[in-house]
């Protein structure tokens, strides 16, 4: 990395940033602040103008809350872990190929061009009881009826949802990590090999520690996304337990307008948890990297 001498200027950078800051300030920060106000029960349209914490209390003491929280965590921890491990492995493999692989160009386009809902459709075609895998298992004689195939969609185990996330996130992580790994491999990896390190040692002592920041930021993005995502669990999740975003949304669209503050409370909780987890994760990995290097 070539070091950069940063220029100092009192007003120019702010001018250059102003359009982006205006949009994010007005609509992003604005949206979060309004959600926060509404979560405190400030809702002039339906005559609620007093600030109160009762909605927070109501959500946190509800038995649905722990169920939803646990379910959200389960889905996003499992899918992030598995996609990170596979993604890093694949990145390492592709970075190690001597000739440039066409596959990487393909991998580059999948995560970008295929939206989550299309990924969902494809995984349903694969793993549902009417899917290809169930048909294959039936043809091979392991089961005689489609409904003997374990139910992975609309089920509590949420395996279908997790598979959708894995399918979608593996190429994303591979790509983010690949760029960095290819560089390290080319420079430091070769040096270490020349100095007599084994391939295994190069991987664990050179490549992995140096690409940790890239792995970290890739998996943080994936983790935060799957924690706050609404579409897939809404379409293919079990009726109980629900994930936090789905629970928030169902409260939001309820005809009873007094449920709106509840929806806001849940979405504030999702926001705060996402920020805390990302912060914890980043802090702990920073420590790890400093220790290893």
């Amino acid at each position, binding site marked *: 990395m070539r070091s*950069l001498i940063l220029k100092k200027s009192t007003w120019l950078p*702010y001018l*250059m940033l102003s359009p982006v800051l205006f949009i994010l300030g007005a609509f*992003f920060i604005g949206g979060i602040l309004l*959600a926060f106000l509404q979560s405190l029960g400030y809702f002039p349209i339906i005559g609620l103008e007093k600030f109160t914490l009762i909605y927070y209390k109501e959500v946190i003491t509800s038995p649905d809350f722990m169920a939803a929280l646990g379910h959200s965590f389960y889905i996003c921890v499992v899918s992030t872990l598995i996609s990170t491990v596979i993604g890093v*492995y694949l990145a390492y493999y592709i970075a190690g190929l001597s000739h440039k692989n066409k596959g990487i160009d393909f991998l580059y386009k999948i995560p970008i061009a*295929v939206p989550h809902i299309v990924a969902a459709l494809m995984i349903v075609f694969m793993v549902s009881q009417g899917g290809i895998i169930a048909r294959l298992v039936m043809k091979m004689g392991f089961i005689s009826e489609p409904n003997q195939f374990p139910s992975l969609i609309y089920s509590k185990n949420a395996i279908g949802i997790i598979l959708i996330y894995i*399918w979608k996130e593996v190429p994303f992580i591979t790509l983010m990590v690949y760029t960095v790994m290819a560089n390290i491999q080319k420079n430091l990896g070769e040096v270490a090999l020349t100095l007599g390190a084994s391939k295994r040692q190069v991987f664990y002592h050179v490549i992995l520690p140096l690409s940790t920041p890239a792995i970290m930021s890739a998996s943080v993005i994936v983790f935060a996304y799957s924690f706050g995502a609404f579409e897939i669990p809404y379409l293919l999740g079990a009726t109980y337990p629900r994930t936090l975003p789905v629970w928030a949304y169902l409260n939001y669209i309820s005809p009873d307008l007094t449920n709106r503050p509840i929806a806001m409370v849940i979405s504030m909780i999702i926001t705060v948890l996402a920020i805390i987890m990302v912060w914890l994760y980043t802090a702990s990995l920073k420590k790890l990297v400093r220790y290893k290097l």
Partner: protein
Amino acid sequence: MRLNKIFSLTIFYLLITPFIVLILWSFTQTWPAGELLPSEFGFRGWRYILEPHSKVWHSLLVSLSLSGAVTLISLIISIPAGKAIAHYDFVGKSLVETLILAPIIVPPIAVGMGIHLSFIKYGLADSFLGVLLIHLTVTLPYSVRIFISVFKAAGTKWDEQGRTLKANWWARFRYITWYLIKPGLVTGSALVFNVSFSQYFLTFLIGGGKVITLPLILFPFINSGDRVIASSLSLIFILSSLFFMIIAEKCIEDNQRQSEFYYL
């Protein structure tokens, strides 16, 4: 190494097989339960979509113009922003950086539900403009991020060279910066376009059913309904994305594409 290869190829094929199944479904006429292959192929799904009065054409047009506009605005305002963060030191920089990356972490559900009422109040709800503005909050983190890395990698020396040669602001942009940001523009437009193109929740909430994009048409098909039509719709979706990416790449024509680097 042999085992590695087998393992990687397995992952690779697991990633592609669903595509093949999707394509098969889109050309299916009848596919009886329990059979591994369709018993009869046909164009039912494609005919449904290509019918002139189907909602698909209209939603495709809305989607393309919405995401096209989002991409254009997002990229234009991200270039100076990325440069400011990469090349300048200023008070409150880390705060600005955090704000810019925050929308990647904070779920859109909180932002969308929070701002919905004020959008209704100011007439932005149920409108193209409202949806466009809310899409920008989601795409900007990605495009600014890309240009930060582009400008960091390029450094300031080219710009200084230009200054030394007394090139004015426009000349420096046209003959120096433009060439430095080209690869960023290619990946940036692909990424931003697709983040906006595949956005369901915010379009649905803020657009209130008035701004119908392709994901809104596709959504109900995922868990129920006609698999054949759903597959054809999905393929139209992916093809339009790929088509846009190729067009963008050709327009910006980055001849020595730095394919080693995928700015994400």
